[in-house]
């Protein structure tokens, strides 16, 4: 066996990109016995230059293009783009379109969180928790598919509104699914979240203190698990989130378990939001039709929204051409990555999956 002498009994492990527990991502770990003394994330294996490519596409063409980085949260990444583009193109979507956007955003949040939950289950070695959320995720995909037309890459939100209206009978089907899924959440809790073995693997593991979370720029559910009550849907409401009553789940502990619980509560939260939206929605137009080629006025706009993984930020500069002059995307995974090496150093090797995936890091999103 080839052993590189690191001085003492240290060992360098390259976790990824060819590793079942890493995704398209590498993290170089230095081990001292069972403890991680250094962790250096190395993203970029799926970097496609989305920002550069966006400069060569029209505002409409950019929608399917820009949802590629995180297709499991497609609305989460296209909605802020469309909101930014609308500011540049100076169009206002009709009321019903805003509500449908909220439905899609929240459905996508559920789909994304269920995917996360499934992977978190298998990361802890709990194979049932992999199969159940993956199966239940299909129900929400079916709901989203009936609106958006495809299973994951909807390209549904467009400047000026949404592509098409929600189909008839959607409300009944959605409510039926939610009723079923609320029962399932209780079963998830019984088999996984209240499982003493699962708690022994996550409680007190990877503690992210409040001041560190702020300092490092952590965002989204990870920030809320560290006791900070910050959510763009509340802070700077877009669409009609200011008309909906909901609370943000916040946990003070900041450990892996708290991050899990925030996401579990958000599943319930999203369903409550969709229920309220379905009650408030009135028939009406769904699209402000823009004739001809979309050209913005020279200028710029920046917008943030709350995607499943945290705050998604777009900054678009226009010079009046058909193509945007510059598209800057700041994705939550990229900002949460900084917390990973912070949390991993000092923990055990066996805790690496428990910490790594509790941050809900999505390599493709971070690499853009």
């Amino acid at each position, binding site marked *: 066996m080839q052993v590189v002498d690191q001085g003492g009994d240290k060992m360098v492990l390259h976790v990824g990109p060819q590793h079942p527990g890493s995704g398209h991502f590498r993290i170089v770990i230095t081990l001292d016995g069972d403890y991680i003394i250094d962790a250096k994330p190395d993203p*970029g294996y799926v970097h496609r230059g989305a920002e550069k490519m966006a400069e060569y596409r029209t505002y409409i063409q950019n929608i399917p293009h820009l949802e590629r980085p995180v297709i499991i949260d497609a609305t989460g990444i296209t909605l802020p783009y469309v909101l930014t583009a609308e500011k540049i193109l100076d169009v206002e979507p009709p009321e019903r379109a805003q509500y449908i956007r909220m439905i899609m955003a929240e459905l996508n949040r559920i789909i994304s969180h269920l995917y996360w939950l499934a992977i978190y289950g298998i990361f802890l070695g709990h194979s049932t928790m992999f199969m159940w959320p993956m199966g239940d995720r299909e129900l929400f995909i079916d709901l989203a598919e009936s609106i958006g037309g495809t299973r994951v890459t909807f390209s549904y939100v467009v400047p000026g509104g949404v592509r098409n209206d929600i189909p008839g009978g959607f409300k009944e089907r959605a409510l039926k699914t939610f009723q079923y899924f609320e029962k399932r959440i209780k079963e998830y809790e019984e088999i996984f979240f209240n499982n003493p073995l699962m708690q022994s693997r996550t409680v007190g593991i990877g503690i992210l203190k409040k001041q560190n979370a702020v*300092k*490092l720029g952590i965002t989204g559910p990870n920030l809320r698990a560290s006791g900070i009550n910050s959510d763009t849907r509340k802070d*700077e409401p877009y669409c009609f989130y200011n008309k909906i009553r909901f609370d943000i789940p916040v946990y003070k502990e900041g450990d892996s378990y708290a991050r899990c619980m925030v996401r579990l509560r958000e599943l319930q939260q999203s369903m409550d939001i969709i229920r309220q939206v379905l009650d408030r929605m009135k028939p009406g137009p769904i699209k402000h039709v823009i004739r001809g080629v979309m050209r913005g006025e020279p200028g710029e706009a*920046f917008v943030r929204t709350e995607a499943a993984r945290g705050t998604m930020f777009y*900054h678009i500069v226009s010079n009046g051409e058909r193509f945007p002059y510059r598209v*800057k995307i*700041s994705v939550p995974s990229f900002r949460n990555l900084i917390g990973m090496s912070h949390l991993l150093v000092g923990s055990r090797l066996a805790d690496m999956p428990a910490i790594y995936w509790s941050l809900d890091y999505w390599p493709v999103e971070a690499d853009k």
Partner: protein
Amino acid sequence: MSKNTITETKLVKGLKTKFNKQITEEYVEPNRIKISTSPTNLKAVALAIKELGFDQIISQGATDYPDDNLFRVEYHAICVSIKKFRRIMFAIMTTIPKNKPEIETLLDIWPSVEFHEQETFENFGITFLNHPRMERLLLPEDWDDIPPLRKDFSLPGRD
């Protein structure tokens, strides 16, 4: 000045009195503030904004203007701990010449800017002085073309 930009205007006014003529107000809209300053003053202004409560960098990027031969470097700061500022995004802009793309890092003010500055470095070739890890992050290590987000980097078949 409308009613819902009172906080924003107050913030900018405070900064202006502190820095006199060294900062320019680009625009103030509801929830949006944009100021610009010179690269030399950037660090002092950033520190002042941090002390106002804007404790996170949500985005840091640059834009290439080949006609003016300069880069615009922008920092977007947000606040997560003070409730009344949470709705505001604070953009600080500065311009640096393209032939000497160097700027002082803000890593010691906002640690969250670390990866953003690395990304700007590899995409635009802007060196952030005193940044401890001024190396490639997303691009391959053996990238030997010009930084890809500059306007003179052309995509084959697109231009």
